[in-house]
């Protein structure tokens, strides 16, 4: 159980963590600006906001960035505090599964609107 991680994987995660952070820092203010400029922000306006294809794609990419960022962050914390691999690896798997479910769920929410 020594080589469960490659030497380069850490660097890739490090880069992806920063790339997803920048993507979120750009998208979130844009989204809040768009959402808050709809006044009043009632159900019709909220739904109309997500009816555009660009909004659906942008939102799904934002959610994908959140999920990737969350998993890498949890991985880092688990490496620091949970040392036995027999516990740590199932936790990686658990959150990876949970977040993949979240990604498919998000796509279903967005594209289910029609």
């Amino acid at each position, binding site marked *: 159980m020594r080589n469960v991680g490659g030497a380069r994987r850490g660097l890739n995660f490090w880069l992806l963590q920063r790339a997803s952070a920048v993507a979120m820092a750009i998208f979130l203010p844009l989204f809040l600006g768009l959402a808050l400029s709809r006044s009043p922000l009632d159900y019709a306006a909220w*739904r109309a906001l997500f009816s555009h294809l660009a909004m659906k794609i942008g939102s799904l990419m934002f959610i994908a960035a959140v999920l990737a960022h969350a998993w890498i962050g949890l991985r880092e914390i688990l490496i620091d505090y949970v040392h036995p691999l027999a516990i740590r690896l199932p936790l990686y798997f658990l*959150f990876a599964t949970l977040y993949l479910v979240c990604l498919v769920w998000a796509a279903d*929410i967005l594209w289910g609107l029609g």
Partner: protein
Amino acid sequence: MAARPVWLNPLRMRLPIGGWVSILHRASGVLLCLAVPALLYALMLSLRSPADFAAVAAFLGGGIGFLFVLALIWASLHHLFAGLRHLALDLGWGEARGDARRTAWLSLIAALVLTGALGAWIG
């Protein structure tokens, strides 16, 4: 080799301000990680029907729901500011001790003040 006694009393450890911002960056990150499924659930409900939209708005607008919103706003802002500080440090900006302390205080206070302002504006 005899086992050496280890006695760490967290109450007697003096964490520098950068350490506080760092550990709160982690704590806020964990909070946001756990909140993701709940937020997706709220998004789903809010887009499903006008009645569900109203129910989500009512829940998040008062009581426990509002505390949840405040916690998430603080966690997002603290994580964002501490994260931007991290990115700056990656690029070699603000690494001198005095600068690092000032930006640590700045991110900590900015997150708290903005959370209070947003909470007052929403509530």
